[in-house]
């Protein structure tokens, strides 16, 4: 049976600050790079292959590191590895803002030694927090990776509906259509995370990226009029 904790973590109604982030969609829409459902589908697949691999592997890592209850992981090394794979300062800030928000919520909903040890980091990256909570839910790194991708894609889809007035049912179908690709990306990211954690080497985490989206994220952060925080 799916745990009720995982269902809550997947629910966009959980207060985690995610509703104000478009995952790069607003900057692309503003420049006419994303105009319809077909563009959105391309964008989502690109996300899965780019930063998707990084956040999915980070979530799986958070889950794996939280699992042994008897030892406190050196979170700062792994958190720094996520930063190193997130070249845009604006995207790092967005990840940390959402990590802090999820941690705030988690501290009240599911207090645990792992949550406490991660919160000593201050504002950890979002997927690490997500991974720790998936472990607390009794689920594993594969679920954590897929959940990170679910939020990455879901946030982009929701923003596209709000910004472009796309048919929300069409967009939901587009997101559903990314399922196989997301599952494949989650599997690969999980394998990489398992190996990185086994060898205690954050350098083994995937480091794929999308330079154009990083540049757009920086332009977005400096823009005068924006509706989404990222």
């Amino acid at each position, binding site marked *: 049976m799916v745990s009720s904790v995982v269902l809550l973590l997947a629910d966009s109604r959980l207060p985690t600050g995610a509703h104000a*982030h*478009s995952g790069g969609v607003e900057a692309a829409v503003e420049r006419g790079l994303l105009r319809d459902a077909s563009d959105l589908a391309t964008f989502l697949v690109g996300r899965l292959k780019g930063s998707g691999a990084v956040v999915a592997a980070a979530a799986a890592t958070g889950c794996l590191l939280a699992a042994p209850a008897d030892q406190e992981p050196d979170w700062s090394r792994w958190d720094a590895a996520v930063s190193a794979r997130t070249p845009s300062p604006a995207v790092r800030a967005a990840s940390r803002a959402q990590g802090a928000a999820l941690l705030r919520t988690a501290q009240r909903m599911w207090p645990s030694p792992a949550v406490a040890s991660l919160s000593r980091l201050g504002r950890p990256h979002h997927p690490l927090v997500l991974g720790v909570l998936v472990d607390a839910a009794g689920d594993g790194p594969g679920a954590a990776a897929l959940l990170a991708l679910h939020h990455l894609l879901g946030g982009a889809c929701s*923003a596209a509906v709000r910004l472009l007035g796309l048919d929300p049912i069409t967009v939901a179908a587009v997101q559903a259509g990314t399922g196989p690709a997301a599952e494949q990306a989650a599997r690969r990211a999980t394998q990489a995370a398992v190996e990185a954690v086994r060898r205690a080497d954050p350098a083994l985490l995937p480091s794929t990226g999308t330079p154009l989206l990083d540049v757009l994220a920086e332009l977005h952060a400096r823009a005068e*009029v924006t509706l989404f925080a990222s």
Partner: protein
Amino acid sequence: MHREDQIDRVPIPAAPPRRGTALRIGIGGPVGGGKTALVAALCRALRDDVRLAVVTNDIYTTEDADFLRRHGVLPDDRIRAVRTGCCPHTAIRDDITANLDAVEELSARHHPDLVLVESGGDNLTATFSYGLVDVQVFVLDVAGGDKVPRKGGPGVTRSDLLVINKTDLAPLVGADLDVMRRDALAVRGERPTVLISLREQPDAGPVLDWVRDQLALR
């Protein structure tokens, strides 16, 4: 696993940790009612004897903050603009995390006595969660139509102070202030309502008195 006899006992979490001692006042209401003008008026009137900070939530992100800066009512670093992803009501009610983050960051930096959280302009159903603010003001304007108080909605009926602004426009838009006052009284019970023209009373007189009362209650 939980024992059968424990399973129906839902644990209630402890109260959230409160960072900072500031009174937090939410200011909400529809677009164009005068929320930012009210914030500016309160800042001007209070800044000499109350430590202040402001969080703005307008969809045009820095626009409200810039308005406050341009009018020189508060130094830049006491104003934080929060973006709401096209959903101002979500940011003040359903998912308050980004606003809490802004309030706490300002509180840690400036130790204010009062933080004003200004919502982006929304509709009559948009109200603040009391997880974010201690009390809330709902700002309507006369030009929005004198039927608005009768329509009700949680902002009109349950806000701690209802402000009906732009009374000077009443004759121009054919609004009956007595009708607005009577309808507001009917749905608000003991909760106070103020009719004001911020243009004619730039010190926000009666609203300022209410805010000072709230500060004194702390």
